[in-house]
């Protein structure tokens, strides 16, 4: 077997933790090799070792059978290793050509020579079927095309080994399909690919083999065709995982939240981020707003919760809350699991117990004559910690900053759910969480629905949208473009609406 990259028995230690513990990764020429693992399993560390950003304590790296030492990213370039980062590293007001040649500019008599570069780029894009528009600016092109520019950047530097870091996170279903075609094309033309992901479905669709990491340890490598997604999930998590969300049919009753003609203007550009949106959410249903990131979902939630000023009317249980303060809205029965848990959800430098009373510290339960009742705060924390299984180093007094993402999210959910409100707004509640935590969040949301709460879910993950919701609306460029019943629609159909290529009057 001919291996283009071999990382043998790599061990990389950080103070107090072994990020990679005896990990082996062997990449066969012209294969797509998936690297699977939860957050914090050591995928990025392993790739950083391959890129020369970290030096491993133990283990060797072989490129094309020869042992090499990679000291820095320049060495990695020399060995023709290239990476497409999850967050693209592009200059937004530069053109496609300028971005691709940045760093390896071709010159003529000391002046930049665009024509040579452009010729090579067009040639490459035709060869690998990467549709791009070489002269347009990055800020004007779609996310999918930006990703193709990133891929071209590597090809322009003659990379043979391509690493894709969570490449589908920002794409629509159609774009994902196209990316997969591109990846197969690349391997056909002789390139080898490492695909970092935690999405099993995509591995099943595109990868040849799959190596699994769990908590820094190497679990094994399997041929994708010979295994099932369930088996891979078990390897990743360490126990059988239930992907099907158990839920009964929804029994929606009274309307809790009614939104009428909400319009939100961007403070700087004066563009309409949300344009005349109306809908209502009933008790006992999970109502989902689907859409690609940046199509106004964030602003819509800000308008409902009061974080941003808006035009239109917001009714909660029939009462007009449009002009109330955030505090009053919260007290009237709005719980909000925010999109960005570090920015909005938690005061990271506060202890867990303080964070757990962030919405209630001013109530008589936790203060008297302006003095905090520390004992009650501690009891509340201990109760929620055991009820929601929030794990942390020192219990109630742990700094929120030092907790894992999954447990931070559990803390927020515990705080919001324990307030027992009629409406729960959950914005991307599973973002960045590992499989176990995702299971927990999904179960919690379904439970809330069954208790007769109204759940407004904003999600970018189509799987989540399809499995969890009872009703779906799609937002595109700030407008509602369609309403769907998850039982009757397909991911493909939703994808078309999300990308703006189809719309129906709602």
């Amino acid at each position: 077997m001919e291996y283009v990259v071999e990382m043998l028995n790599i061990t990389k230690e950080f103070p107090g933790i072994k990020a990679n513990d005896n990990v082996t990764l062997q990449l066969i020429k012209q294969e797509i090799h998936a690297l699977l693992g939860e957050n914090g399993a050591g995928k990025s560390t392993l790739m950083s070792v391959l890129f020369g950003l970290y030096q491993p304590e133990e283990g060797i790296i072989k490129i094309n059978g020869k042992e090499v030492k990679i000291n820095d990213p320049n060495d990695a370039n020399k060995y023709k290793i290239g990476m497409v980062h999850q967050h693209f590293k592009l200059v937004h007001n530069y053109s496609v050509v300028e971005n691709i040649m940045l760093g390896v500019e071709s010159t003529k008599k000391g002046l930049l020579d665009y024509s040579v570069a452009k010729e090579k780029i067009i040639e490459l894009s035709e060869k690998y079927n990467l549709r791009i528009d070489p002269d347009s600016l990055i800020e004007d092109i779609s996310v999918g095309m930006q990703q193709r520019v990133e891929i071209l950047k590597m090809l322009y530097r003659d990379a043979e080994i391509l690493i894709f870091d969570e490449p589908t996170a920002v794409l629509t279903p159609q774009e994902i399909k196209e990316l997969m075609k591109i990846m197969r094309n690349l391997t056909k033309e002789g390139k080898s690919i490492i695909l970092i992901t935690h999405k099993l479905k995509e591995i099943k669709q595109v990868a040849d083999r799959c190596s699994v990491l769990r908590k820094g340890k190497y679990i094994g490598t399997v041929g994708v065709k010979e295994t099932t997604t369930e088996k891979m999930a078990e390897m990743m998590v360490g126990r059988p995982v239930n992907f099907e969300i158990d839920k009964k049919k929804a029994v929606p009753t009274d309307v809790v939240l009614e939104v009428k003609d909400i319009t939100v203007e961007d403070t700087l550009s004066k563009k309409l981020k949300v344009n005349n949106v109306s809908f209502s959410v009933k008790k006992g249903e999970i109502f989902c707003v689907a859409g690609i990131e940046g199509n106004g979902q964030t602003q819509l939630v800000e308008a409902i919760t009061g974080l941003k000023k808006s035009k239109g009317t917001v009714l909660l249980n029939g009462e007009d809350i449009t002009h109330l303060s955030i505090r009053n809205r919260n007290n009237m029965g709005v719980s909000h699991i925010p999109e960005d848990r570090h920015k909005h959800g938690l005061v990271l430098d506060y202890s867990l117990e303080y964070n757990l009373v962030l919405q209630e510290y001013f109530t008589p339960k936790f203060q008297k004559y302006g003095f905090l009742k520390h004992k009650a705060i501690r009891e509340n924390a201990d109760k929620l910690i055991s009820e929601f299984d929030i794990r942390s180093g020192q219990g109630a007094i742990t700094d929120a900053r030092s907790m894992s993402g999954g447990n931070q999210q559990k803390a927020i959910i515990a705080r919001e759910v324990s307030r027992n409100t009629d409406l729960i707004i959950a914005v991307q509640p599973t973002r960045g969480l590992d499989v176990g935590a995702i299971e927990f969040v999904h179960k919690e949301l379904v439970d809330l629905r069954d208790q007769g709460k109204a759940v407004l879910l904003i999600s970018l993950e189509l799987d989540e949208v399809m499995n969890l919701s009872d009703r779906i609306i799609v937002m595109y460029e700030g407008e509602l473009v369609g309403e769907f019943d998850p039982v009757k629609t397909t991911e493909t159909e939703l994808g078309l609406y999300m990308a703006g290529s189809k719309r129906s009057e709602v």
Partner: protein
Amino acid sequence: MGKSNKEAKKFNFEAFFTGKMFMDVISSIFSIFLGLLLGYIVMYFLNPEYATSAFKVVIGSWKPIELSGTQAFNMGEIMFRATPIILTGLAISFAFKAGLFNIGVVGQFTVGAVSAIYVGVKWTFLADVAGMNLHWPIALLVAMLVGGLWGAIPGFLKAYRNVNEVVSGIMLNYVGMYLSIYFVMNNMFNATYARAMTIEPSAELPTWGLEKLFPSPNISIGILLALLAVIITHIILYNTKAGFEIKAVGYNRHASKYAGVNENRNIALALIISGAIAGLAGAIVYLVPGKSFAIVDVLEGQGFTGIAIALLGLTTPIGTFLVGIFYGVLQYGGYLIQGNLLGGFKPEIVDVIISTIIYISALSLLVKMYMKKIIKFISNLTKPKVEDEQLVSEPEKPIVEAKKGGDE
């Protein structure tokens, strides 16, 4: 099970010594140590013969020393010097908790001082109100009020117009200084000495018998007021709803807004309270016998020193108090070593020490990094050998698993 217990113990050991509080205190102590060392070196170059004995006096100025011609008041003098610094440091610390850098303490200090002097000079009717002397208490209150108002300007600008409080603070320092001079010249100018008029004796802060405990002509209840302010701010910050909100806004403005905290109100409030504390400091400095406000266009130094003291005190009220007392010790030590018997050093040597300490404390990140390495090294040394073996033997299992996986 036994293994996991051991791991937990090891974790706790490292966690404590690499914990935030410990590291912060260590790096403060380290900066103080280096600052003193450099001060000593400078003294040695200036006057090798007296350097050691004079240095001992600087860092031990609370101990009685017998020097002919210098009467050592010690503790009383130390407290007199520490009081304004503790208060300005406290003002800075408090604003820091709300995430604000109140560099405007200088101006708030000055306007507080001048308004206290004005009350002390003019409002003589307060000396006997129904048999009680309300003169000095009212002077203190007015100083706090005016200082708070001066803090309210950058406070409201920051809260409602998002004007950087450092910029507006610096500007208002000069406005405050020149306005004070203008006010003094027009209302209570003593042309002979080019100073403000002297305050009435009834406006002087009482001593309440403190002079018996700490004999010194400069002792007053100022130090008690400073201590009281420290205790009150500590309680506000750590035990009340208001403190919860102020700190939450300081740590994360967005999360506070999300939780329904009126973050603008809290920002303004924090700067008002901070300004009031600075105003109190100004009043305490000038409500003593023999001190009068000079007409010079120089910003009062206590405000700036307060920044340094607050930072060294880890921007906590109690830390600020302790460091403030330490500052008093150094200041008085610097005063003592001017005598010929101790080599006739200039008191500015103390400023060299203090500025070095601040400079080093700015490098606290570097200190912390090295400290972590050293602690890790020590904890590795002290680890029992059994554990080492476990660490070696642990990874063996996954290798087998891995090979299996690879063969599939």
